[in-house]
């Protein structure tokens, strides 16, 4: 998805990661792929176990499946928001449904990647999330463009949260076209840091916008 940062490690220590997925086989696979670069400190297969292990181990990043017994990824995020609000989550799913993708982001995930992502890219995404940035896959960028596409009357806009700026839209379009953050930066003649700022701002809007179009869009589309 993105060109790998050579060093996803913040500081000296390896990033501490918790894997949450209800398929043990998938957890084993992911663990094998990323274990060289990050420190997998815990695993969980359902919502209760996930919250327990996350609160106990306080990892840097949680890799969170969207579909989980006990209420799904959003439920984990909701419970963490009170018990461990500083833990950052990256959603990982096979689901293509806009409802699921937007739902987990609005519940508080810092990014969304599909399970077909390569190990290298996943490690890169983990590093990005740990550093406080947002991780957008081309598909998520497409959903965002769709969700914020509708025309909003000015009277209805109670804050800037309800629409993307022109620059943010450009960044989203480039990500949807498959550009990595660095390539986006080069294309728009801005610094990679600025790209990250734009992406984080889009994430914030996605999470906080109360535009009912956003929920209705997810509702109406249902399918992708």
């Amino acid at each position: 998805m993105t060109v790998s940062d050579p060093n996803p490690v913040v500081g000296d220590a390896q990033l501490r990661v918790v894997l949450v997925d209800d398929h043990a086989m998938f957890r084993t696979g992911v663990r094998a792929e990323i274990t060289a670069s990050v420190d997998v400190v815990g695993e969980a297969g359902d919502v209760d176990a996930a919250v327990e292990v996350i609160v106990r181990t306080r990892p840097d990043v949680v890799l969170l499946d969207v579909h989980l017994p006990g209420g799904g990824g959003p439920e984990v995020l909701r419970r963490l928001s009170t018990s461990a609000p500083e833990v950052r989550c990256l959603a990982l799913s096979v689901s293509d449904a806009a409802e699921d993708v937007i739902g987990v982001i609005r519940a508080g995930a810092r990014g969304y990647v599909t399970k077909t992502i390569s190990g290298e890219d996943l490690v890169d995404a983990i590093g990005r999330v740990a550093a406080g940035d947002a991780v957008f896959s081309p598909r998520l960028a497409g959903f965002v463009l769709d969700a914020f596409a509708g025309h909003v009357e000015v009277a209805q806009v109670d804050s800037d949260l309800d629409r993307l700026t022109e620059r943010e839209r450009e960044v989203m379009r480039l990500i949807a076209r498959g550009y990595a953050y660095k390539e986006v930066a080069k294309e728009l003649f801005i610094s990679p840091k600025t790209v990250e700022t734009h992406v984080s701002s889009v994430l914030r809007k996605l999470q906080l916008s109360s535009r009912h179009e956003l929920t209705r869009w997810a509702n109406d589309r249902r399918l992708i």
Partner: protein
Amino acid sequence: MVPRPATCDDQGVTSPSARPAPPVRRAYRPAGRRLVSGVSAGVADHLGVDTLWVRLAFTVTAVLNGVGIVAYLLLWRFLPIADDTASPGLEAAGRRGLRTARTTTWVDHTRAVAILALGAGVALALQVSGQGIAWGWLVPLTVGGAGLAVMWRGLDDVGRVSRLRWWSVARVVVGIGLVAAAAAFAVTVEGGWSALADAGVAIAVALVGLAIVAGPWIASLVTDLGAERRERVRSQERADVAAHLHDSVLQTLSLLQKYADDPATVSTVARRQERELRAWLYGGDELADSTLAVAMRAAADEVEDHHRVAVELVVVGDTPVDPDVVAVVRAAREAMVNAAKHAGVDRVDVFAEASPGVVEVFVRDRGAGFDPESVDPDRMGLRGSIMDRVRRHGGRAEVRSSPGSGTEVRLVLPRPERPSHDEPKRDEPKHQEHNPGTTDPRSEHDRV
């Protein structure tokens, strides 16, 4: 496959609507999000506003002159109750508790109770100040209304579940009791004043009561017939699912075992199966070649199949196909094939966006790249199949590439401005189907 009430009744009507007709959205009462009847939630969903405002509107109009109550009861009677539907994949995940379902929360309850209390308070104030209706009428009306609500809620549940539950029946019985009590109260109050009117009123009240009691029963009998039919359809669907799994997944699994030592074949077969299953689980009942998104998907699938390359397709917005769009899709397909053949990568990113004035497609790879100035004359694909084809249809194609940094093909097709929403003109062919799953959300916002 997805039980969505897609109706196309309006296709033949020459309505003054300029936009291609969106699928008719039918309001319904969501069974999972009922506080009392689901009317407010259903209306709110349909109008796209928060439930709070709908409840407030009902309460205000109810207190003002009672219209709200009548409207609410009518909607309760005539809006069909239904479960929120989703695609098979989502429904399955929802049933197994893997997803968070949309249900009512305590916030909803608190808000509803607060609004109700507010309404009751205002009504009481009106009564006390002498502006309301006579107490002799208010009491039976209130009791009767409550009885109706209790009974209808019970009937809703009786009609929906296959097995009768005692509390549903109890609700109906209690509801009938309340209505009868209210009627009796009304009759005695009236009877005290005029013995002559007594009999007439009694009969009228009895008739009205009978109609109210029996009406829903008859209605629910009719609904039951429908439910039975639905059940039959559902069992057929289940058989279809079994057949589908047998034909696709089982076959693929046996193929995989057979080719276990040939990674290339395994990944091709697995990828094809994944795509197929994904389309089946999360896709809609899309008609072939009906919209840009469907056509692009088909083109990407075809390239994936024939060239062993993963095509990551993202489509934003959608538009019905016409010959110009077809040309763009074919050119995009050619660009994907080029990337698969010459770039030497296993992945191509494709992004298609249909905005109101323009259709744009980007095909990008991170492969070998080439110098566009020195394209071999025999590479006819690029010139003939991509550039000229798009140009003939009023668009343009740009190729950005340099050795070592991959290639990006950009296809731009300006779309003639659609007539704005007031003009009685429709230039879309009549047979266009608009799939709910791929409807351009922008078309709902009158942006042209």
